[in-house]
């Protein structure tokens, strides 16, 4: 399943890059792109585990940029 999420308070481009790398490393994620310009996360991941994966992704984002939240 492919979904697009808006990211709030993503203020740093380098963080966006790091988030993208971190989310891509999550098990079950097929591909993920974090666009700093459009402030969006596009993620393709395993259907069955999607919610669980998104939780992990949100946690990764928080780790890298504490103020940034994924709007689900």
């Amino acid at each position: 399943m492919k979904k697009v999420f808006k990211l709030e308070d993503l203020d740093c481009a380098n963080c966006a890059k790091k988030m993208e790398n971190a989310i891509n490393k999550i098990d079950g994620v097929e591909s993920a792109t974090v666009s700093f310009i459009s402030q969006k996360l596009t993620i393709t991941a395993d259907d069955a585990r999607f919610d669980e994966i998104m939780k992990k992704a949100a946690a990764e984002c928080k780790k890298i940029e504490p103020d940034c939240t994924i709007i689900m």
Partner: protein
Amino acid sequence: MSKKQKKMLARIIISFVILIAEMIFFGVTKADIGIWKLALFLIPYLIIGYDILRKAVLGIIHLQFFDESFLMTVATIGAFATGEYAEGTAVMLFYQVGELFQSCAVSKSRKSISELMDIRPDYANIEDENGKLIQVDPEEVEIGSVITVKAGEKVPLDGVIISGTSAVDTSALTGESIPRDVCEGGEIISGCVNLTGILKIRVTKEFGQSTVSKILELVENSQEKKSKSENFISKFARIYTPAVVIGALLLAFIPPLLTGGELGKWVYRAMTFLVISCPCALVISIPLTFFSGIGGASKAGILIKGGNYLEALANAGVVVFDKTGTLTKGSFEVTAVHSDKMDKDALLETAALAEMYSDHPISLSLKRAWGKECDSSRIENVKEIAGHGVKAVIDGKIVLAGNMKLMKTENISEAHDCHHAGTAVHVAVNGEYMGHIIISDALKEGAKEAMEGLRNMGVRKTVMLTGDDRRVGEQCAKALGIDEYHAELLPADKVDCVEKLLAEKPPKKTLIFVGDGINDAPVLTRADIGIAMGAMGSDAAIEAADVVLLDDDPRKIPLAIKIAGKTASIVRQNIVFALGVKLLTLILGALGIANMWAAVFADVGVSVIAILNAMRAMRVKR
């Protein structure tokens, strides 16, 4: 400015005023109040930098060491530790000013790019039960509903006009500024602006499937396809930051150990290293440059599916064209009338009358060329001879109209071939040869200019592929000044041809294939870049191609390459500029010439300049 940015501005002003006051106070009085001086400077420092400190602490908890907040915190606390209170505060202040600039520049560019692609309709007008027009969300309109579009409104959904005539402005989609006339029965696509009359449209596609949605989706998704430069920067960033941090550590401790110099001086120099260690300028500006290039191109009706394709377009070396529908109009037209005996108009009239009952494209083009209503009372005994032509009696005379085979079987001995390429319709009246009419596919307007444009853009070779016969191909290639042509190709041969051209081309140059996207999907995918033309409404073409031209103007191809070239050169400028300034500051910092201020400039200042430079890619000159 957003609320957040305004708040930041207030913090900057407050802490700036306090800092200046304190600097003047300590400068004038030279007061030595020990720990109190530190406390006084901590006030503006905390006002301006509390969020950075907080992020730095959270970063440490999450084991994220090399982020900017952490580095700024280490650098400014380092300055405080060496007794440079004013400088530590000032650097934090300067950093925040830079960040604010950067954030404003990014939001401004984000806004102007999205304005550029402002084709999303806000509402659709439909009639309620009482016949009154109400505005609804375009997403709620179902297929088959009738919508009303008033003058000045955007067409919200694709459909067929059931009543009204008007001129529509398609410039938001195609970049074409001349309005297009539409009338009852015609198809209309979403995103056009209705200029004059009221149109009633029967919706044929849901909003999600409409042209506007397709275009927006395509442009938005373009950021998922990373260019080589972006991938390079990603890899580079992974090495760069740790390398600079290690450099900073070495700089702080090795020289004092070796020379026995004072530790503080070297720690300060190391701090400047840390400030420069963020690759932000590159990480922001490169995708932004590609995005603004893509935005600018889409304004001109050129949709590019990703930064990687933009980059490949900039290196175009060979451009391969499909003939029919790409360089030619794909519709048959009478291009020459060669009369041996009778008047030219009379010859055309005779041929048109003879073919009046046929729906063959050639017959249709004859009738179109004649342009008058055919009077069926003048014609009788029509006999169609398959593969040959028509035999009929017109105004009492026996007329033959058809190909050479027909002339031969009917023993018309004077009949002769024509030097023009194309399909010839020979005409004989009462057994006497009258002449022939040449019907061929007309060249598209702008096709020749497109070839010149491509050569000016540095394309080394243009090639044309066609399934038509050799003479037609040759004539077309010659007329347009195309370097090489291959004719009489089957669809599979086209792929082989492209394979061969791919193998021949210089390795750093790319091969572009341009087709109408209808039956050349395999070639479109095989080429380095596939461009589909006139793809408005054709989903298959949008799917298969890497670059989609919304209208079918061949001149858009050199324009696309030009935009790509400009974008690529801005990317290069930004890489060279950002890395150059950083490297220079690193060296000067190590030598103790560049101070922390220069370091902050090398970080955020460079980012801001690179962002502003990136925005240039959006402006497309025609």
